[in-house]
């Protein structure tokens, strides 16, 4: 059997490996953690990473094990980023294809709403929504998701509109195809590449947004660990115990990178025009 095409693309594979690594970490963290992630240990405050103590990534200002907190926090980060992206993408794409396919007044109305949402910086918008909804995990998902709606709406609308003018849409119509057939058979599959790239980008930005919100104290509330609130806690002790900031930061960077690489690779894999020409 032939190798799936995604495995032939080095960039996508690298991204996939990174993401897989975190997924395994989440599964492991459910059953086993080196230390209890929220157990304070006053005797081992701000210990540097060492094999002897078993704190491989050191401890934070309350003596909690940094590695355990990163592992626990990874599930929070991934779940939030996936659900927020799914939420934003679903609503945004529906709005976008609606606007793009129907055109006219609907298009105008929907896209002006999107423009208004767009005019706020995304972090500010997320902070505003959090302030209104209150601080808990679900609200972080909703806040980040709402930030994404206009982005997905715009991208899917643009893709639909540019595809609509293709002659193959006309050809389908002349062959008796109805609206929904044209939308699902011809327009949506061809508009997937930009949307998939946007999804992978959004997954990574969601991690950053969640971290920023938690860093500002508006996201995941301590003692529940998230990479953002770990950084927030590390801010005070960063100069004397850099490991408290470096490792959560590293986790954020690698996972963001993983999603970006996957998105980049997927775009090439999904385009039949880039497949081997016989």
């Amino acid at each position, binding site marked *: 059997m032939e190798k799936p095409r995604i495995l032939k693309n080095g960039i996508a594979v690298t991204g996939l490996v990174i993401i897989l690594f975190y997924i395994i970490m989440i599964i492991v963290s459910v059953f086993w953690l080196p230390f209890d992630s929220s157990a304070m240990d006053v005797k081992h405050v701000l210990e540097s990473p060492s094999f002897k103590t078993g704190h491989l990534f050191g401890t934070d200002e309350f003596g909690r094990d940094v590695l355990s907190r990163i592992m626990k926090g990874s599930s929070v980060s991934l779940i939030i980023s996936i659900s927020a992206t799914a939420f934003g993408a679903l609503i945004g794409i529906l709005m976008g294809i609606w606007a793009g396919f129907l055109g006219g007044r609907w298009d105008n109305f929907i896209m002006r709403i999107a423009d208004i949402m767009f005019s706020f910086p995304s972090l500010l918008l997320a902070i505003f929504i959090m302030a209104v909804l209150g601080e808990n995990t679900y609200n972080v998902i909703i806040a980040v998701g709402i930030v994404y709606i206009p982005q997905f709406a715009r991208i899917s609308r643009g893709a639909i509109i540019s595809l609509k003018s*293709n*002659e193959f849409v*006309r050809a389908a119509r002349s*062959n*008796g*195809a109805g609206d929904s*057939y044209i939308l699902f058979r*011809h327009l949506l599959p*061809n508009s997937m590449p930009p949307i998939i790239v946007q999804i992978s980008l959004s997954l990574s930005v969601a991690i950053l947004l969640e971290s920023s919100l938690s860093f500002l104290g508006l996201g995941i509330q301590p003692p529940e660990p998230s990479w953002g609130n770990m950084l927030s806690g590390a801010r005070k002790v960063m100069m004397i115990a850099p490991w408290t900031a470096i490792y959560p930061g590293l986790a954020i960077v690698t996972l963001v990178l993983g999603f970006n690489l996957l998105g980049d690779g997927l775009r090439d894999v999904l385009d*039949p025009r880039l497949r081997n020409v016989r």
Partner: protein
Amino acid sequence: MGNPDILLDVKDLKVHFPIEKGILLKKNAGWIRAVDGVSFSVRKGESLGLVGESGCGKSTTAMAVAQLEAATAGKVFFEGRDLSLLSSEELRRARMNFQIVFQDPYSSLNPRMRAGDLIAEPLRIYAGKKIISISENDIQKKTASLMDRCGLSPSFADRYPHEFSGGQRQRIGIARALSLGPKLILADEPVSALDVSIQSQILNLLKDLQQELDLTFLFIAHDLAVVEYFCSRIAVMYLGQIVETADSQTLYQQPMHPYTRALLSAVPLPDPKSARTRKRIILKGDVPSPSAVRSGCPFMERCPDVMERCRVEAPVLSDLNEKHQVACFLYDSPSKQI
């Protein structure tokens, strides 16, 4: 309408597009008169060519005939039935009888569908709507035979459009148009995107198919030599109107309308000796915008034979003889004047 020989009858067709201005509240700032009162009929088995330069409305006419562009006014009769009066279900059934071959072999094929699926698509849609009954097995067989007939090896059915050359893609488009067994083919510049050596392959294919399957063609093109070769009758369009129709020999030997004459003399001849000796009519200026409000003859600004009358009155298409109609005051016999 009563004439059973006439397959397609177009009466005073107009397609006007609104020009919209404004961002929030869109206002209508005028109309583009893409097609402005076009009438013609196509007999069974003949091929009528619509020629003209870009923006003359020839493609829009074809799209309005195919009911893919809404007509502002006028009627399209197919086999005596007014297409605008049909319900969407009846129109879908009627569509089986007129199919389109598109200009651009790149954008007219969905890049994510395989050649076999592209050709089978119309059959599957109609089978899915229970308009025709055909088994999946028969669809496959039919697709293979269509590919074979259009000069494509059926073993290419699994390939994607980008794996084919321009000429091969156009063959896919033709096979798709034939799949439902149409009576009329609307060919919208089917060869203008192709290289010369490929162009002749496709023209030969279309000609063979016409004889074999008894097809009727409405053939849109800007290349006069191609139209002359392919069509038995030609209508010349300018600025949304037909200015002259005749059978193709007559039109090339005795062009009457000043525009037709200029158009014919502007075609570069692939024959250096006659190119050197012939006299060319070089028209001045460009085609005026189809959005301008105007009176008089559409060709008056560029016409070398313009008269006073042309500026106030628009000439109508009238018979020179049975087979030759022209819309020009130069040939207005006094007896016809009112």
